[in-house]
């Protein structure tokens, strides 16, 4: 009984560690996702503004300390592409997050099972 106990405890410990690892991973991914989302919003705003401009407006791109005149169309295209990239990145990140979450769920289940076993063993030794 106690041997089982020990084994169960060790397994539980391992699961708990894995779970924590997943959690850390998840938090990192979450941070990344937050940043990406912010960038996406900004880019959308820019695109919106660009769309509102009439064709004569001058748009400048800031390259270091220099402002380089850019074609409005070109600017629009660039921003649109950027937005696409960002969206794709976010999608990928979402998938990653889902994967980690599901792994976490599995771990949770394992942990619960082990805990039950532990309790059972503890409770039923007698």
């Amino acid at each position: 009984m106690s041997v089982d106990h020990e084994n169960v405890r060790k397994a539980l410990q391992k699961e708990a560690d894995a779970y924590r690892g997943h959690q850390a991973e998840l938090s990192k991914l979450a941070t990344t996702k937050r940043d990406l989302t912010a960038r996406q919003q900004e880019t959308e705003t820019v695109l919106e503004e660009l769309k509102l401009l009439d064709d004569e407006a001058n748009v400048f791109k800031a390259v270091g300390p220099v402002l380089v005149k850019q074609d409005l169309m070109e600017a629009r295209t660039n921003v649109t592409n950027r937005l696409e990239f960002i969206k794709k990145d976010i999608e990928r990140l979402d998938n990653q997050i889902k994967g980690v979450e599901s792994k976490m769920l599995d771990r949770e289940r394992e942990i619960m099972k082990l805990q039950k076993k532990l309790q059972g063993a503890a409770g039923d030794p007698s």
Partner: protein
Amino acid sequence: MSQELKACLAAMQAAARQREADVAALQASVDEVARVQQLLARLPDKVRHKAMVPFGKQAFFEGELIHTNETLVGLGCDLRLEASARQAAEVLARRHARAEAAAAAARQQLGELRARADELAATLSNDEGEDLVEIRQEYEESEELLAAARGSAAAAAKPAPTHAGGASEGTSREDSSGAAEAAAAAAEAVVAGRDGEGSGASAAARNGDGRGGGEGKKNDDDDQRIFARLEELERLEAEAGSEGEDEASDGGGGGGGGGEDEGGVHRGSNREMSAAAAAPAGAGRGGPGEGGGSDAGVSAPAGAAGHTGAASGAATSRGPAASAPVAAPQDAVASTAPAVPTAALAAEAEGPVAKAKPAATPLRKGFLLGGGGRGGATRGTPAAQARQPGGEAPVAAATGAAGGGSGSGVGASGGGEASSSGREARRVSFADGSLPGEEAGSGAGLQQGPGRALGGPGRQQGGGIRPAMKQGSSAGEPVGQRGVGDRGASAGLAGDGGGGGGGSLRHTAARVAVLEDGGDASMAMARAREEAFTGLVRERPVDGDGEAAGSGAGGVGTSLSDATNGEVTAAPKRVSKFKQQRQGAA
């Protein structure tokens, strides 16, 4: 647990603070945009604007703003737009709107966070502003007991019903001796199944001499057992919840087992009751094993019978359920017999059994009281009493459902009360035992239990009691536990009284128990249980109890109060008490 809650609360508050910072930042950006907009609006007023132009970090020079209509508006993504002042103003207006929206959303989230944090903080302290005390009982023993009880209950139910049923039925609460013995036998069996507590044996022994009054010695053992039982019962109750019903209805014997089940069922209704029920259940189980004990026997059959009867009747009311289960276990045990007797009295008492969970103890008391005749007879035997409380107490103690014990006792008395209100009443009545003769009616009477003062929090109907296992209520529990011992005795006594005035029964039962044992360990336990069961707050004035006791059927109550006095201060915390008990027992 409260630590966890506090940690959670702290985290929530931290999040709220962070959100606050976000809101502040967003608001700042909104203000900035507004400022620039104002400036832009003024620029076209003049061709040249005189200005102090910043030059480097710490210098200015006088200069002019020219070509103010041409602006480079930053769009984001390293893009600048050449625009007129008016166009810039439009862009800024849009920007301002977006910033405002973001700030508003953040503010709303902050409000939500704050609300949640406040809620949590509020729940951390009870309504009265006291700190919520999380009552936790260690499971080990209880679980075992529960399991054992279950098994034994089942087994006991079968055999017990035969024994207990026979015993209880036969004795039908009335016949304490016969029942006691039968119960003892059943209890033995049950006990053996359960914890193998000596209580069973002791119960039996108790029964034998318990009646006679050999209780004193066993009390200690009983106490431990009782506590163990109580815990067990509690657990059982929680788990049995619904099952108890069926069993309870089975009959006294089954009632014992059923009581548990019922208790289980009803348990849900009364947390306290569950505790009590658990105790009784545990006790019931153990009770049957040990319950056989003197009063238990009597009470058990009576209690069981009444219990089951009540249980069935109580099916509806949680209280009864609780009490029933409580009663059942207790009765079943024969220790719960008090419930039975009261049950008999109350018949409905079982209903109160539900309430009896907590009432279980009252049942006991009532049992004692109700048994009046029986109670008296049983009471006469200190052992019996001890058994009752002892039986119950051990059970109750075991289960920590001291309250249950008391509850059952009370329940017994409250048997009549059956109704859920009875549950509440249970507690109350216990205090006073001033409950009207009938158990059911005793609800009101119950409430009066001044002494018992089921403690506001604890008193609350199962829900209140349950969650309120606050200090106060828990105290009641431990008290009940202690009182269980007493209660057992008193319960037995009360049981005898037969549900006479459930409340009063309870009360008197308790009192009686007190009187009987005059401080026997079992008595103490019974008392404790009762107290706990009835949700009486420890602080209830002992005097009140004494008085109530006086009014109690048996008028034995006074002794109870005395007993409780000692107990009152004894159990500061149910948990600790139990733990101690267990440790002591272990």
